[in-house]
């Protein structure tokens, strides 16, 4: 329960009062990372630099001059953000060994606030995927696979296989970040969100996943997937913490011309008690085919929760929802084709030994460096961008995008303040089941509830709501108006308080190699 109280109210006070020191926090997190290595959440652990940052933070606290709430707080960053002096791989052979010469703006901001960067988290290769299973460093395991809650509900297979084959995925593509936050190895993590890549794993891992409005947070240094949709995402254990992170990250960046120029004022979330003036929209198209019965029930229960508390709850329609995935498919592959063109082996990254000609070197480098998913999207994107196809596919998709964005505008104009939808169609699938379908099919299915918010550039947040029949987390999503993060988070925080999502009870896991997973109480400090 202490972990829920979060950075502002609990951790910050403890650090200021000296009840715990930044180095202690850092060491505990590093130890926990080691003992949870089997989750494969981290690609790189920056132990030395993290401890150094923690020491510097400790000095500041001793002098009574902490930089703010984030000073000394251990955080993790998805491995598609550039981090100076630390390898940035995007979970691809193309960037193995690539040491960033600079920090992404969001990374720099966190460091300027005194945060301690523990390491880089695992993802699907180049953030393409919805399982965090398609990176070169292997899949990420959902910490809930090892929870008492899941184990109680699962039928044990043959005893020796128990922990090995039963584990469930984190969702993706920011699965490493979600797993890291969920397993207490860090207090917050950065993800990215292009089609749902922060909200999807947040829902599966029982953590808060915030996708900010496009243009609010700088993308400088985030290795791009789709320039017109990508945003840095925030993963935390409670809504309040997400607001703290947002406060330190949002704002205009001269290095990213797609950030808006308006001043951003960090805010504290009020403790909303009266929702009677709130109008919540329930988009009927989000009752998508394949939505599991327990998620449908939870969604309905949530709507009732608002209604019973006095809010106006209305059914609304976003008629072009069903075309969102197709539209995304075309626009995403087109932008990917363009963004991946920079990987040619000359200036950075993998370079093939092929020497016959420049072009053959490029082709061989790209053949060796990219996995099938990435290569497939590049080829599709190039197809849609061919002169004979440009109007028919790319421009057509841009038109459909406007229709999707307009659907939201109409609904918000009709008096609805916020939308309530499920985040995923079901709880996390077992890995063995998930990999039976290919990446594109899975992404198509899994992004359906999250993707439209990226199309329209709207802010959205997944809040852990309850456990499914299988004992796994289910999250519900709120979608807000452009740049109205304060309202979005205020409502999300009220909802979080109502549902009282259970804390994960991680069990001891005896591994063949080493490392006994300590009961998570040791990671709290209260």
């Amino acid at each position, binding site marked *: 329960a202490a972990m829920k109280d979060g950075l502002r109210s609990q951790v910050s006070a403890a650090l200021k009062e000296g009840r715990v020191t930044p180095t202690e926090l850092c060491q505990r997190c590093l130890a926990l990372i080691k003992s949870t290595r089997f989750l494969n959440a981290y690609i790189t652990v920056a132990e030395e630099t993290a401890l150094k940052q923690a020491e510097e933070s400790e000095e500041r606290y001793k002098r009574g001059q902490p930089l703010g709430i984030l000073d000394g707080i251990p955080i993790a960053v998805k491995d598609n953000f550039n981090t100076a002096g630390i390898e940035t791989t995007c979970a691809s052979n193309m960037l193995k060994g690539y040491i960033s010469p600079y920090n992404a703006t969001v990374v720099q901001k966190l460091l300027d606030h005194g945060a301690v960067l523990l390491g880089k988290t695992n993802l699907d290769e180049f953030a393409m995927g919805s399982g965090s299973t398609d990176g070169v460093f292997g899949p990420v395991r959902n910490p809930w696979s090892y929870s008492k809650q899941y184990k109680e509900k699962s039928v044990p297979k043959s005893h020796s296989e128990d922990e090995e084959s039963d584990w469930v995925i984190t969702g993706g593509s920011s699965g490493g970040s979600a797993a890291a936050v969920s397993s207490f190895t860090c207090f917050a993590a950065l993800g990215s969100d292009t089609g749902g890549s922060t909200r999807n794993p947040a829902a599966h891992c029982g953590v808060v996943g915030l996708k900010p409005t496009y243009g609010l947070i700088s993308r400088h240094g985030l290795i791009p997937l789709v320039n017109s949709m990508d945003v840095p995402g925030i993963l935390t254990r409670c809504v309040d913490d997400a607001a703290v992170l947002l406060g330190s990250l949002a704002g205009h960046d001269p290095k990213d011309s797609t950030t808006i120029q308006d001043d951003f004022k960090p805010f504290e979330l009020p403790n909303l008690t009266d929702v009677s003036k709130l109008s919540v929209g329930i988009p009927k198209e989000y009752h998508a085919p394949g939505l599991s019965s327990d998620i449908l029930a939870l969604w309905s229960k949530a709507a009732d929760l608002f209604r019973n508390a006095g809010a106006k709850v209305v059914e609304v329609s976003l008629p072009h929802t069903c075309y969102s995935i197709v*539209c995304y498919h075309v626009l995403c592959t087109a932008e990917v084709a363009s963004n991946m063109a920079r990987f040619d082996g000359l200036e950075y990254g993998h370079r093939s030994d092929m020497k016959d000609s420049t072009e053959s070197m490029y082709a061989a480098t790209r053949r060796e460096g990219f996995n099938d998913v990435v290569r497939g999207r590049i080829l599709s994107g190039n197809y849609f961008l061919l002169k004979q196809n440009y109007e028919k596919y790319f421009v057509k998709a841009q038109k459909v995008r406007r229709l999707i964005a307009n659907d939201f505008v109409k609904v918000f104009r009709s008096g609805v303040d916020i939308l309530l939808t499920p985040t995923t169609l079901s709880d996390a699938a077992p890995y063995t089941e998930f990999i039976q379908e290919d990446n594109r099919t899975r992404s198509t299915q899994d992004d359906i509830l999250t993707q439209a918010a990226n199309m329209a550039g709207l802010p959205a947040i997944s809040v852990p709501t309850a456990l499914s029949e299988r004992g796994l987390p289910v999250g519900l999503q709120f979608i807000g108006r452009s740049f109205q993060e304060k309202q979005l988070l205020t409502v999300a925080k009220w909802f979080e308080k109502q549902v009282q999502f259970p804390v994960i009870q991680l069990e001891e896991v005896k591994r063949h190699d080493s490392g006994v997973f300590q009961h998570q109480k040791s990671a709290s400090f209260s």
Partner: protein
Amino acid sequence: QKVSVEVLAHLEHLALVDFRDLEGVERLQKAIQFADQLHEVNTDGVEPMDSVLEDRWCLYLREDDVTEGNCIKELMENAREKVEEYFVAPPG
């Protein structure tokens, strides 16, 4: 309609990525089939949307002032083959 062999070759040349095998080609076919669903939507009179921020008009040009640079050493660090301040590519 199937994608012609000429178009496949053209795509490989443009993308500098190969289909590798029949599976790769089939993947493309499926992707096109999937994308064809777009044509069900009536978009008469609808303008294409480049950016969700179009109303805010935030894409701007900044002043032509040098604010950073002189980082040749850092930029060259990650290149595998270089000579002095040149990136080296195979001839031809």
